[in-house]
């Protein structure tokens, strides 16, 4: 069927043009109640010496698209007149496969979906499944999961900072920050055996308890990581080129950001203090003392500041979590869900039956549905699971934050220069595995 031409007339966003009809950076003025609003200059026609518009592909295979995103840009000289994103180049049918797997078998899929934040995804899925099963996890497991999700936020922001610097042109912070990331990798590897695709949690507990001596590594990491972060921000934050490339670029006002469904650092950079850990808390986040960084203008520079501040808050949370880490069992004792320990499984009959049912058929939740959201480094990451009583979910829906954040890229990019497109795309911190699922 031939497609219907897009009826919406996407005209050049007015904030991109100044009075003399020349596209320019988005000027921000404070209106009466004090929040920053882009100037709505009258749209003027380009002078008649307009060159032909050029259609170029910043295509699936491009160093600056962080994966296989494809942006088709209509350029007038250097100014982007229209941006048409194409995604789906990494669509691997996660949700379809989820309907053929048991709950504990889906956890390896949650690593590969947002591969920068695998421990965080495992924790999110485990919370969703435990809400569906109606089980409460032990205290030690809660604190371990907080540590896992904060560490995963750190390594995700590290990859973002590294690739963001390379996109703008600074290469050395990439090497500094990836070295810190390797230290977190070695910690995760000693905990669960895998560097990146961790499969850390199980429904009702964790894959493994932390080895002894692990808390000293974490304490050592907490003590030394902020120094590297300060080095990076010393190099970048007040750098003339860095600031010049990012201030006033891709600005989104607060209510526009909420209407576009942005979440995470993008939303907080626009001035909306919405953080799932504060507003819809999970894993006792309300008992941790940390604050939520909020920007003002919502441009690329504020997103950078918000993420850097968020990394420091992660260190604060990790510090408190390390101090309060209780002893006790990691897994819940309800053997309908968790495999009984090997020794008991071999000795007494009842846990042998449990063991057999777990392995052959997997845990079976009651009929119902649950949506649990988690503050992932990209935004509000949610798992919506519908179960019909069998051991395989009827529907495993992933609410992908960068999918919704990326849908606002035509609004942010039009009117800016081609080099700003790269900066804006890097500031959204997209992961194509999560966008295309």
């Amino acid at each position, binding site marked *: 069927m*031939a497609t219907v031409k*897009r*009826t919406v007339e996407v005209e050049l966003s007015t904030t991109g043009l100044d009075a003399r009809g020349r596209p320019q950076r988005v000027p921000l003025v404070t209106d009466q109640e004090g929040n920053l609003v882009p100037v709505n200059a009258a749209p003027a026609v380009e002078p008649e010496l307009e060159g032909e*518009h050029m259609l170029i592909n910043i295509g699936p295979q491009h160093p600056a698209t962080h994966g296989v995103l494809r942006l088709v840009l209509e350029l007038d000289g250097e100014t982007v007149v229209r941006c048409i994103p194409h995604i789906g180049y990494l669509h691997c049918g996660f949700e*379809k496969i989820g309907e053929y797997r048991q709950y504990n078998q889906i956890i390896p899929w949650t690593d590969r979906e947002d591969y920068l934040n695998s421990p965080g995804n495992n924790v999110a899925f485990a919370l969703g499944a435990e809400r569906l099963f109606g089980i409460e996890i032990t205290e030690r497991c809660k604190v371990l999961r907080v540590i896992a999700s904060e560490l995963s936020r750190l390594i995700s922001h590290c990859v973002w900072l590294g690739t963001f610097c390379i996109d703008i042109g600074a290469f050395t912070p990439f090497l500094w920050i990836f070295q810190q990331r390797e230290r977190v990798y070695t910690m995760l590897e000693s905990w669960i055996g895998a560097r990146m695709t961790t499969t850390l949690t199980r429904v009702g507990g964790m894959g493994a308890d932390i080895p002894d001596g692990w808390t000293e590594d974490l304490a050592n990491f907490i003590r030394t990581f902020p120094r590297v972060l300060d080095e990076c921000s010393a190099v970048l934050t007040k750098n003339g080129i860095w600031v010049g490339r990012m201030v006033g670029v891709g600005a989104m006002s607060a209510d526009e950001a909420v209407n576009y469904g942005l979440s995470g650092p993008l939303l*907080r950079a626009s001035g*909306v203090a919405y953080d799932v850990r504060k507003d819809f808390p999970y894993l006792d986040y*309300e008992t941790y003392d940390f604050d939520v960084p909020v920007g003002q203008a919502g441009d690329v520079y504020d997103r950078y500041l918000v993420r850097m501040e968020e990394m420091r808050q992660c260190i604060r949370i990790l510090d408190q979590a390390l101090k309060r880490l209780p002893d006790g069992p990691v897994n819940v004792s309800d053997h309908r869900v968790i495999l009984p320990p090997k020794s008991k499984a071999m000795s007494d009959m009842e846990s042998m039956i449990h063991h057999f049912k777990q392995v052959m058929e997997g845990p079976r939740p009651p009929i119902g*549905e649950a949506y649990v959201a988690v503050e992932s480094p990209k935004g509000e990451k949610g798992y919506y699971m519908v179960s019909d009583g069998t051991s395989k979910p009827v529907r495993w829906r992933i609410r992908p934050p960068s999918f919704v954040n990326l849908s606002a890229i035509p609004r942010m990019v039009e009117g800016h220069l081609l080099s700003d497109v790269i900066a804006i795309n890097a500031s959204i911190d997209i992961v194509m595995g999560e966008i295309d699922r």
Partner: protein
Amino acid sequence: MSADFTPVLAGRAAGGNVPAPVTPKNVPYRDGTANPSADALRARFGTTVSRVDVVWGETTVIVDAPRVNEIVRWLHDDPTQRYDYLVDVTAVEYRDLERPIEVVWHLRSLPFRRFIRLKALLQKGQPLEVPSVWDIYKGADWMERECFDMFGIRFVGHPDLRRILMWEQYKEGFPLRKDFPLRGRFSRSEQLRQILSQNPEAKYSMEEISIAEAFEDLPADVRARLGSGEPVGE
């Protein structure tokens, strides 16, 4: 981030006496307390709200499909509700194929810190049509396109309903439907042949092709094929 700028506080606008949110513990299976918006919806719309049930502490309001846009607009604009954040638009198809397909909207009210789930039931027999909420939430654009791509549900009022994850010429149907085999309908070599032997213009949407045509950039063979009326790509 200067101190004098007071951010738009999400979740605190409901006044000072609202208790700070706490991690929900021992969430009841069926008899949790419903979201106050559910009663407001029932009072405001009466029969179009066919059922409200609370599963694992989340209120689900089942409404008739044709009036969804009106209900969501009311939830969005009404000062007492202010559901300004669309979390998700998706669909669920159950394993027994007679049961209707459910289209699900997840909404959050950031100022009042509330979460609600709207559902519309679409009988399998009639055409799967649901009003789009794109004119209320701009974020719904891609979510509805993905729901169409995966389930085949047409969102009436969506400006540009095309496939977003699969390519436009994808002939195998809608992948997330339960009657769609996990490995696809065609053999692997057939799937590979179809995608590798696509014409170049199949990789561009109508919009880009019209832009290229406006500036006479189209290569000759593409222009010839377009002239002969072949369907265009993504």
